[in-house]
């Protein structure tokens, strides 16, 4: 086994560990932190199923963003939806035999990368062209987009330009999963692609990528509007101080 393969094996294990531990820690923290008061942004659903529907539309269609700004919505939604396709397509490197629906998505999914890049470039353009967005962007906001564009464009490069030994790649990743380590093909474009992915995984729990789990825990979106019918209480404030009833 080459040194390069060994390094990538260690990198991936470390990245997975950091991402999982970090996310579990964060999500647990979100879950156990009290919600002292009822603060849904109204009009809000008055039932649990209504809240599920509200979150569904937020997550799948970016409902609020659509209301806010059509360009940001267009670029943002295209990027996320295309990324989902691309991620699903990548499942074929981690499953054997490949699930039927993954094989079905695969031929369409590979074009998703172009849409993903289009969306990302649009979002980045806004950070330069719209004075308000330029004002609120910090270096990390630009670097995050650069990172994602790097991942997308190296992926496209591998798929449509240089090509690579995908049988060996699949063997490498299955080897990672089953602790039966296999060599990684020596391909510099693939190497860059994978290093960037590892980097993304590592920064996930430390960065604004936490918006993904955050959305599920946002009290303004996930609370039911029924404070008169049901008395809301939270660990910290169940009964008024100094009173017992």
């Amino acid at each position, binding site marked *: 086994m080459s040194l390069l393969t060994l390094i990538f094996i260690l990198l991936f294990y470390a990245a997975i560990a950091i991402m999982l531990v970090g996310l579990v820690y*964060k999500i647990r*923290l*979100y879950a156990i*932190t*009290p*919600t*002292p*008061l*009822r*603060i849904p*942004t*109204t*009009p*809000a*659903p*008055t039932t649990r199923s209504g809240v599920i529907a509200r979150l569904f539309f*937020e997550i799948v269609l*970016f409902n*609020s*963003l659509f209301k*806010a*700004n059509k360009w*940001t919505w267009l670029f*943002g939604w295209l990027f996320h939806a295309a990324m989902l396709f691309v991620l699903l397509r990548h499942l074929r490197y981690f499953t054997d035999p490949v699930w039927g629906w993954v094989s079905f998505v695969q031929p369409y999914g590979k074009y998703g990368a172009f849409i993903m890049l289009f969306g990302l470039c649009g979002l980045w353009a*806004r950070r330069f062209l*719209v*004075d*308000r*967005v330029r*004002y*609120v*962007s*910090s*270096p*990390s*906001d630009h*670097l995050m987009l650069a990172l994602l564009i790097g991942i997308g464009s190296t992926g496209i490069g591998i798929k449509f330009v240089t090509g690579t030994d995908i049988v060996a790649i699949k063997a490498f990743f299955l080897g990672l999963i089953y602790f039966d380590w296999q060599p990684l093909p020596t391909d510099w474009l693939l190497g860059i692609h994978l290093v960037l992915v590892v980097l993304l995984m590592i920064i996930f729990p*430390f*960065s*604004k990528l*936490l*918006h993904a789990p*955050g*959305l599920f*825990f*946002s*009290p*303004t*979106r996930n609370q039911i*509007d029924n*404070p*008169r019918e049901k*008395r*809301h*209480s*939270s660990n*910290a*404030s169940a009964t*008024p*101080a100094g009173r017992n009833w």
Partner: protein
Amino acid sequence: MIDFETPVLKEYPIIPLIQPGAMAHSKPYVARQDLQEKIGFPGELIDDWQDIAIKKMGELVSKSRALLVFLDSCVKCGACTDKCHYFLGTADPVNMPVARQDLFRDVYRRYYTFAGRNFPKLVGAREFDREMLDLWYSYFHQCSQCRRCSVYCPFGIDTAEISMAAREILDTIGVGQKYCNEIIGKAQTIGNNLGLPKPALKDTLEGLEEDIEDETGVKVRLPLDQKNADILLVTPSADFFAEPQVDGLIGYAKVFHAADLSWTLSSHASEAANFGMFIGSYENMQKISMRIRDAALELGVKRIVFGECGHAWRVAYSFMNTLAGPFDFLDQSYPVPQHICEVTHDLIQRNALTLDKSTNDDRVLTFHDSCNISRGSRMGNIPGGQFVIPREIIKATCNHFYDMADDTIKEATFCCGGGGGLLADDLIELRVKGALPRMEALKQVVENHSVTHMVAICAICKSQFSRVLPYYGLEMDQVISLHQLVGNAIVLGGSKQNSLSANSDVKT
């Protein structure tokens, strides 16, 4: 007072280009030592303010899922950047909701996150130094906590939560805002924001009774501290004598009278407003809410009804059950609490009121949705009832009603510019500029539909508009109370009403 130029009303709303520092000079008067101490905060900036502020920040975040999630989740997408009325009116980029939040978020990241501790420049993390403290004091008092940004944020991030937390931290280190903290003290000791003691309140109400009788010939009562009345009415103290609020109070009294409902005001809880919310202080908000519970128990009422006040209704509807509940001693066949608009609407639905729309024929009306009612509460049984019910009441009491542009009403409504504890004279520039988006929408219906009056259901909105309308070339009395319309249209007297006015239930 500072000189400033009233913004020019444009034909169509335009998002301004940013002007850094445009409102950096705006800051309210700092609360005096005695005002601070009265409500449990240090009298002046404490010596170790930096450490205490940072510690308090950690404590607040650990107690609020909203803060924790909001601070982590912002992706700086820019969706909120053109949604704040203060940004639209001042062009100061720190008045963009995300930039305002970042004053808090950047400090949080510096002290409480891995990225901010190790790579502050990369993620824009900043120290909590004297300069930052001044920025906080200035810009967290340029947020009216109206929640408009939270409607448009893809993650529901609510700048109101962050500005409340920031103000609580400022109070904790001894830098409070005079206007809010003085009022909170009065509400907690005297019972209302205006500091109106019981004898004065009694006089005022008797005066109003005489006025109504002079005008209508009908004896409509405004009872105070009447034990065993069915309804405790809790209303903003501005309703007792400020114009146009007082006409709303007369309207409520006429509704109760016409519907033969037994009701009372309380001198102990003679205030619906709860400025504890504005400064993010759970304890102070709870103390003020408890006065209402105590008054309800003391008077032995069956129902609690709130008068026209925006943030008061948010606290009452969304928080009071948590802060001062459970209210199991009240009649559970009515919602607790109820809004006066719910009561009036219900009576109209049941044909229990006789209304003569033509009495309001000299007016062409539009309706200003109050921010806290629209985005922080509800009326009635269905989501959005807070938009339907007031409009149905207006339409039942007048013949000429036109809504303002869709993106300025209902959940998209603009704050009046004076909410969130900013209705102070020392912030008049901010108030005038912050009213710009509403004034533009109003101007449109004035020109297109000859609208003469804007109806409001919030004491702060009413005071704010009375004050700023003249800056935009309109008259101060062009804002009116919703229940003023009702009071005008309601037909008292007639055989039914005559027998009701002598109802034994409301006699002392």
